[in-house]
């Protein structure tokens, strides 16, 4: 008799274990689903455009350090105020560089600047394909290409 009781209790405990496992799983599923919905909303709000430039360092604060600039397909950078991205820095040339999106990649090309354009610390002498995460240096302004 007590053997039967034990077996019933054991079965109950065993089912309890599996039930707890499924409750936890259910909790995860709910969190994932909620997160998915909010991520979708976020994406709609923020992910427009093909890339951004995050300004890491800017001694004269134009563009301000810490800001992010949304990019169009063709961007000119330099000290001339008519550039798409105006770089106020003593070491930048008036028409310093072009940052363009062609096909499926970003390219940077120096426009004959005095002090050169640097990608990840190397001075470039021809148009260079960029990946997201690469660092650009125009004069003393350091920027990173991001998605």
């Amino acid at each position, binding site marked *: 008799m007590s053997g039967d009781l034990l077996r019933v209790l054991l079965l109950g*405990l065993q089912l309890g274990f*599996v039930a707890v496992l499924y409750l936890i799983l259910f909790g995860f599923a709910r969190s994932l689903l909620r997160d998915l919905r909010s991520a979708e909303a976020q994406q709609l709000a923020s992910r427009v455009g093909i890339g951004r430039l995050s300004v890491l360092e800017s001694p004269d604060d134009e563009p301000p350090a*810490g800001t992010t600039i949304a990019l169009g397909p063709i961007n000119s950078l330099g000290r001339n105020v008519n550039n798409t991205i105006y770089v106020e820095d003593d070491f930048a040339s008036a028409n310093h560089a072009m940052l363009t999106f062609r096909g499926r990649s970003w390219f940077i090309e120096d426009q004959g600047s005095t002090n050169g354009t640097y990608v990840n610390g190397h001075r470039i002498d021809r148009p260079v394909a960029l990946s997201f*995460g690469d660092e650009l240096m125009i004069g003393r302004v350091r920027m990173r290409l991001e998605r």
Partner: protein
Amino acid sequence: MRLTLAWRWTELRMLLPLLLLVPLGFVVTHVAEAGVLEPGPLTLAFGYVALMLVAHAILVLSGHRGDQLLLPLVGTIGGAGLVILNRLAPDVEPTQAFGLQLDVAATQLAWFAVGLVAMLAVAIGLRDDGLLRHYKYTWAAVGIGLLVLTAFLGYEVNGARLWLDLGPIAIQPGEFIKIILVVFIAGYLADNRALLTGASLRIGPIRVPPLPYLLPMLALFGLVMLIAVRQNDLGQALLLFGIFLTMLFVATGRRSYVLIGLLLFVAGSFAAYKLFPHVAARVDIWIDPFADPTNKGFQPVRGLFALARGGLFGEGLGQGLPQSIPYVHTDFIFAAVAEELGLVGAFALLALFLAFVFRGLRIAMLARDEFSALLAVGLTASLALQTLIIVAGNLKLVPLTGITLPFVSYGGSSVLASFVMVGLLLNVSHRTARAVDREQGLKDR
């Protein structure tokens, strides 16, 4: 140092049910084995949950902003694994280290502690990806060094040369080579992605990557086949190559690269089958384990019997016969889960892995730079493929290879490596969250 608290309520809420799950699993096992209604020793169970909660507390104290579901997911998978190991402990030879004799569950718990420390160190300690990204060739050299060391100084266990003796403990460098490979490929592809997607050689109708990129791919393929043959470690070879192809596809979006890789792998496997008797033996056992059920096919046959006994709802913890399978606590732990918890329990475990993979890919999608995204994809693919290969091996869907089920199988190197990978994923998501915070802060100003 200024303490910056960041509450992680979701993480805590999802960790707390472990306080019920793990001890309950221990109680069921004890009641079934002893035949009396008493809780039995629960130190390990509560010790495990305490470890997870301490890890959570340290993340909170350090102001970590990383993903909040990773730790609870890993905690639940590992908790279920500890319950199964505790159930298998009486039937598996205990380990001895530092003059102590510990059963497999206790040893595993010790490794969980080591793994969590490593995870926290990586998740909190890495300030940016510079250490990983800029020293990628150094890491590659370290990986190849480990590989060579293992190939020549390692010792064999059960026909595979995987172990490196380090005094009181032995490690399996293969587990760490996996992580190094992911770091290296992520760095390499992040730097060369634009060129990889651009030009291509055309041979007839198929497009082939340009030569400077085709060569590393072939070199890696050669290395992988060397591991398979020299160390008789087919699982590891399949895993490394799978990681590489996944990352290459994610970085370039070119199906042809994957196709070429798969063709290479199939051709290489076929050649290995024809040339090397131990590879052929594995495949023959897989095709028909019942041809030699008492000798060569013993392990897979026992595994299949265990799955059959388990059925839909399982035999119940401590009530099945998983100990009848050789190496049940490492290679065949999934069969043990399926026997004692049934299809229902095994399915729950796989769903937890699925949720983990989902989370990992989400971290990759949100990452701000190419390297971090590829790193997250590679780590996730590694854990996913590892699970897939060993579970499919247990189910006789693919030839069985001796790799571990992450967080579940017994094994120090595996647990440690898996936790380092979780740490890296946490680190990537932390840096993403910080970047978003900075932008939000500037917008509000």
